């Protein structure tokens, strides 16, 4: 457990007045507040620190205790026995003294010294709506190809969700009411799940379309023929035209990715032919190629 220097975090002297603390906090909060820095984990972490520093230093009793026991916080337990801080705790993480909902926890140091999250009495204490939770869910391309159910554990609660086929990498879905509990009868917050879909070694996805490269031997490319290729939904036989050039692209309709929430509709599969030149030719084969080149 590390000892946070709350004065340093807020950039103030130990002799700072309440006004100095408030000003320092507001200045930093304007820079790092999560509402001002969407999807920025670093800003969120910084805000947690300044929020916690403000929570302690803006409360004269907490500040006194921090100043007195700060570095030797372990000894503060005796001081804590029968303490009155717990009585003020709401048991809900993620608020700061001026009343913002914030889904960040306090540090181990804070929890150990002040006993859970901090609510101190001031004017804007009561909350209305529960906090929103954010989660990231990793899928592979094949998972995202089919509609399936998945059970997630969010803050100790199991939630079973249906993931529609065709979900995009980076797409966020909202599960209403599965965020933090509302306070004083207010509605619960929402759960936001962002999907991270790993790339596939054979198929690349762009929107609803898939792209793949298929090796084609020289003879089939020159003379034409029939090949069997893998699509994401199974094998498909394809006719190859004679004199097919390297890099030729063909399109297979409806063999791409399912369109999100549009059942029965699929994107296209784009196939690029990579013609493979034969290697380790024997003398006879070389002679035939020579003959061909001179013909």
């Amino acid at each position, binding site marked *: 457990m590390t000892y946070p220097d709350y004065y340093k975090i807020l950039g103030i002297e130990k002799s700072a007045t309440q006004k100095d603390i408030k000003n320092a906090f507001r200045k930093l909060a304007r820079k790092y507040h999560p509402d001002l820095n*969407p999807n920025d984990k670093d800003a969120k972490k910084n805000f947690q620190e300044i929020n916690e520093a403000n929570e302690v230093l803006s409360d004269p009793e907490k500040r006194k205790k921090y100043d007195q026991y700060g570095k030797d916080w372990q000894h503060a337990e005796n001081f804590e026995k029968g303490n009155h801080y717990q009585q003020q705790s709401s048991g809900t993480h993620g608020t700061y003294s001026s*009343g913002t909902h914030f889904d960040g926890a306090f540090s181990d140091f804070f929890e150990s010294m002040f006993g859970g999250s901090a609510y101190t009495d001031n004017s804007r204490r009561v909350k*209305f709506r529960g906090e929103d939770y954010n989660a990231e869910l990793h899928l592979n391309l094949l998972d995202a190809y089919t509609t399936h159910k998945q059970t997630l554990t969010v803050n100790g609660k199991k939630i079973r969700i249906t993931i529609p086929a065709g979900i995009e990498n980076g797409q966020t879905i909202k599960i209403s009411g599965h965020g933090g509990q509302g306070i004083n009868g207010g509605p619960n917050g929402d759960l936001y799940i962002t999907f991270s879909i790993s790339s596939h*070694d054979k198929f*690349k*996805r762009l929107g609803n379309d898939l792209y793949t490269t298929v090796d084609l031997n020289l003879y089939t490319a020159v003379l034409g023929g029939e090949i069997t290729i893998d699509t994401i939904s199974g094998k498909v036989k394809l006719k190859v035209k004679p004199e097919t050039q390297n890099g030729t692209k063909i399109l297979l309709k409806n063999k791409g990715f399912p369109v999100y929430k549009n059942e029965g509709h699929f994107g296209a599969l784009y196939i690029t032919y990579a013609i493979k030149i034969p290697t380790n030719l024997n003398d006879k084969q070389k002679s035939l190629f020579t003959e061909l080149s001179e013909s």
Partner: protein
Amino acid sequence: MQIEDLIDINEICASHDIEISFISSLQKTGLIEITTVDDVLFIDTGQVKQLEKCIHFHYDLDINIEGIETITYLLDRITTLQEEIGELRNRLQLYETF
């Protein structure tokens, strides 16, 4: 819109200990929409998050209405740009291993 999707503005003001005039100012600048039913002012539950954001900006960060308006516009732009970056990253994957 159903009545159960609406929250009485007075309840919100009481919960957050804020003035109704603040909400009216937000409405005037178009930051939130207010619905009137039988002379009672309501806000749609879908807008509560936006309203709470404005409350935090104003009461916690000391930002005035004009500032909130500017921030909201810039945040919308950030969101659009982040979506565009996500789309471009997905597109870039096409060329990374081919």
